[in-house]
């Protein structure tokens, strides 16, 4: 089953990038979780030892995934999706609560997090549905079904509560865009975000003035041949102002203070430096500490195992969600840019692989993989370096955690298997 064909067709560059990220991740987990009485790196009572074990398990899983017939993934996509939905539902009855979130099954030796599995099953199911010859993404009804595939797991994960993981599924919308979902969905989403932010930062008046200027500018530079849809523009303007006013209402009366504080911190809305500092040290404590740790690294970093803030456990959850700050402190700018470049390379390589698929299912699944990896990487690093609000999701291949690593590995290697099989499709 492991014919020379497979070994030759496998995309070794992707595997190399995967191995590099896993290795660098573990090296940093080791530094973060190393204690004074640290013994062998295989000491499974220590977190770094456990992670090493998970890496081993993941590599075995890789072999199994590559060994499975590629066609089976497409055939069982719906079944796997349904199983994972059932597992998510089962959490409401049998779930184990860790740190306030009922997201795990206790399997004795291992805590299974079904939301990690749901990520790749949702990607498979979405690809399967969209690649169906019957499906036309231009049709509202089919768009609705596609959205449902994404929304069902989200709806089940939010009440765990784990809004971070739920948010990940939203990224699958990129698959729909690739397959022909009109881009105005994207522009509307972008407009909503921009209006939301500008309203909070500058107020409705300035937002309206800015939008009016943009529309005027658009009218001025429009092509002579282009017929201006004046009415929709005015409607858009009015709706935007209405939305902006509702943002203020929601922000001030629906949001709780802790939510407001998060936005105050993220958008630097609080102008009183003393209050801002207080928010930084309470709500923004993790981000504050991780920023300080990264700053302390400077250009070259403090050197491996020399990070004083890492050793002093200054950054909470540093081995999981904040692992990137260890890179920042000990390896400096050189280290952080290397990791950012590795992720960029990996994602671009995957886009390239997806685009060369002749099989629609493989391409769509590839896009699903990219979307899920990208949103994890974007939100996690963005949070750790302080440009996004705190949303607790792990950095793929990097963060400590068995379910996470296993989930990302399965997600990625199913695609590598599909890619390696692309010339056999007609068989």
């Amino acid at each position, binding site marked *: 089953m492991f014919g020379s064909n497979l070994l030759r067709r496998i995309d070794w560059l992707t595997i190399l990038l995967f191995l590099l990220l896993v290795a660098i991740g573990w090296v940093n987990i080791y530094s973060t979780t190393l204690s004074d009485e640290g013994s062998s790196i295989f000491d499974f009572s220590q977190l770094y030892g456990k992670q090493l074990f998970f890496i081993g398990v993941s590599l075995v899983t890789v072999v199994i995934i590559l060994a499975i017939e590629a066609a089976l993934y497409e055939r069982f996509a719906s079944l796997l999706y349904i199983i994972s939905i059932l597992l998510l539902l089962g959490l409401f009855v049998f779930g184990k609560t860790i740190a306030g979130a009922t997201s795990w099954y206790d399997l004795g030796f291992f805590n299974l997090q079904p939301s990690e599995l749901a990520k790749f099953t949702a990607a498979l199911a979405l690809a399967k549905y969209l690649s169906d010859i019957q499906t036309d993404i231009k049709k509202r009804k089919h768009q609705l079904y596609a959205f449902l595939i994404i929304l069902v797991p989200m709806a089940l994960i939010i009440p765990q509560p784990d809004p971070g993981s739920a948010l990940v599924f939203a990224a699958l919308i990129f698959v729909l865009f690739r397959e022909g979902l009109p881009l105005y969905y994207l522009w509307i989403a972008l407009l909503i975000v921009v209006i939301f932010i500008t309203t909070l930062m500058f107020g409705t008046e300035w937002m309206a003035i800015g939008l009016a200027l943009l529309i005027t500018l658009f009218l001025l530079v429009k092509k002579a041949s282009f017929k201006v849809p004046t009415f929709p523009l005015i409607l858009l303007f009015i709706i935007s102002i209405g939305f902006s006013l509702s943002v203020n209402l929601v922000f001030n009366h629906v949001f709780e203070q802790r939510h407001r504080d998060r936005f105050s911190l993220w958008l630097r809305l609080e102008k009183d430096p003393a209050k801002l500092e207080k928010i930084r040290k309470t709500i923004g404590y993790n981000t504050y500490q991780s*920023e300080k740790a990264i*700053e*302390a690294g*400077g250009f070259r970093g*403090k050197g491996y195992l020399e990070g004083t803030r890492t050793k002093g456990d*200054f950054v909470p959850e540093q081995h999981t969600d904040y692992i990137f700050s260890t890179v*920042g402190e000990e390896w400096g700018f050189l280290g952080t840019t290397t990791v950012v470049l590795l992720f960029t390379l990996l994602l671009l390589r995957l*886009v390239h692989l997806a685009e060369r698929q002749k099989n629609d299912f493989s391409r769509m699944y590839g896009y699903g993989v990219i979307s899920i990896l990208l949103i994890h990487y974007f939100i996690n690093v963005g949070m750790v370096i302080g440009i996004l609000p705190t949303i607790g999701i792990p950095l793929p291949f990097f963060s400590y955690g068995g379910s996470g690593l296993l989930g990302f590995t399965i997600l990625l290697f199913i695609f590598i298997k599909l890619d390696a099989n692309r010339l056999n499709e007609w068989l």
Partner: protein
Amino acid sequence: MKKILLSSIIVLIGITFIVRLSYLQIFTSPSNQVLEDTAIKAIYDYPERGYIYDRQGKLLVANQPAYDVMVIPREVKPLDTLEFCSLLGVDKPRFIDRLQKARVYSPRLPSVLVPQLSKEDYARLQEKMRKYEGFYIQKRSLRYYDTPSAANVLGYISEVNEQDLKKNPYYVQGELTGRTGIEKQYEEILRGRKGVKYIQKDRFNRDIGPYKNGMLDTLPEQGKEIHISLDKDLQEYGERLMVGKRGGIVAIEPGTGEILTLISGPTYNPALLVGRERSKNYSKLHYDTISKPTWDRAILAEPSPGSPFKTLNALVALQEGVIKPETTIRCYNGFYVGNVKRGCHCGGGIRNMNSGIYESCNAYFAGTFRKIYDKYATTDEGMDVWEKHIKSFGLGNYLGYDLPTGRPGRIPSKSYYDGVYGDNRWSSSFIISNAIGQGEVAATPIQLANMTAAIANRGYFYTPHLIKKIAGEPVEISNFTERKYTTIDPQHFEPIVTGMANVYKKGTAKWLRIPGIDIAGKTGTVENFILLDGVKTQLTDHSVFVAFAPVNNPKIALAVYIENGYYGARYAGHIASLLIEKYLNGEITRKDLEKRMLEKTLEHEYAKPYSGEEFKINEYVW
């Protein structure tokens, strides 16, 4: 569009991240210094501060232990508060209040609960301490003074303030530094160097082991003991004589420039600025703006020197060759400046240099002073020459002794008078008061003592200083071991010294002779004024006296300045005479004179301007 959408987003995110990271890691200056790293705590090991001894090796300043009761609020277990409070000697509400404050400061870090227990309280508490979890006793070192005297010379130590921290990176908050006097001047020698241990902390500020395995740690360097040139017995004796008087006394060993005593009255016991009552005492001393006990009159007061200054004018005249010792001048119980007569108390008659000095004749010195200026074509030239000679005695500028404060006094120059009267609009008549040490000249007591030492040495002096030995080794500082020559040739000093010796033999201080000791001295009676409710009011004269002894082998030269002590031979002369006898003979034979000086005070004199009533000055009281 749809094919490159995702790729563009990936690249855009990468660029955003790298821009943000370069801002964080390249353009934000990282606090890489060990001390600024919040994850590193420096634990200091303080060496004992050096002791201070007097010139004979008698102890002046040592250290004593003090015991602070510390608390770590988190570790406190329920306890018998009443019993503990009675052991500590505090009442219960205060105890609870302090415990609460400590908890607010930090539940995990130690705070001072009760500072500086007495030795008795410590002894009682120590054996029961183990019963109270979360509390412990921490030993600290405080200064201990083995003398009630010399507070102004020794100075005191106190916690560093913001300015100290900015000026010197050695210090960290809460450390002690010399604030005045010797403690400040020789701070680095006395202090030694603290050792440091760097400890890696976690985010709860708990220790989790040495930083870099102690690679950066250092051992403390002991503070060194120093010997200063003060004579403990003489200093203590002088301060007893100064009780109830305001002024300054400085005694110097002419052969070395070593300061034997440096007394300011009123003064205070240095032990007042140590321990629990410290800040209360400090406020009391600091806010006494009338008698100013913390203001060191010996080095900061700048009165007119009065008649002792005449000796310098005589020396200048001899050096310039405008008079000879035999030259005579007639005193008309005064002298004339134009048509205005200025008085003289010498009795009148023909005066030469010898009787001019010992009878302190104003007329003789006014004439002498004029002759100096008449030698030169212009007053400006004469002024330059006079200023040069006078300043060579260490007057009119900072002397350069080893104390952190000082005043320059004043020797007026031609530009000074040009400013007052206008260029070329003044002559020697305008400044004739300088002839007798009144007018514009001003000198601190230590400058007067130094001037006297220069006369005692017949033409040179050593910069006065206090340091004698560091860590048992004699100190060789060139500024203190080089002779500073005056511009007067040695042969001109003999007539002056003879005149000054006659002050005791038959002149203004003939009642103050000491059996068996030849003294040369000069009295001074200094008119002085204050502004009282905006009105210039004359007060009782300051009493000034300079002297050195023995005449032919001087061991001590001193200046005594007593505010409102009336004429020179009175308070200042008496005190000078007693100090010389004490220093040279070790004991006082003239017990009645001593008794009178110890008991008499001038408080009634100092109260006059504040009484709000009319008052008489220069009353003869005894």
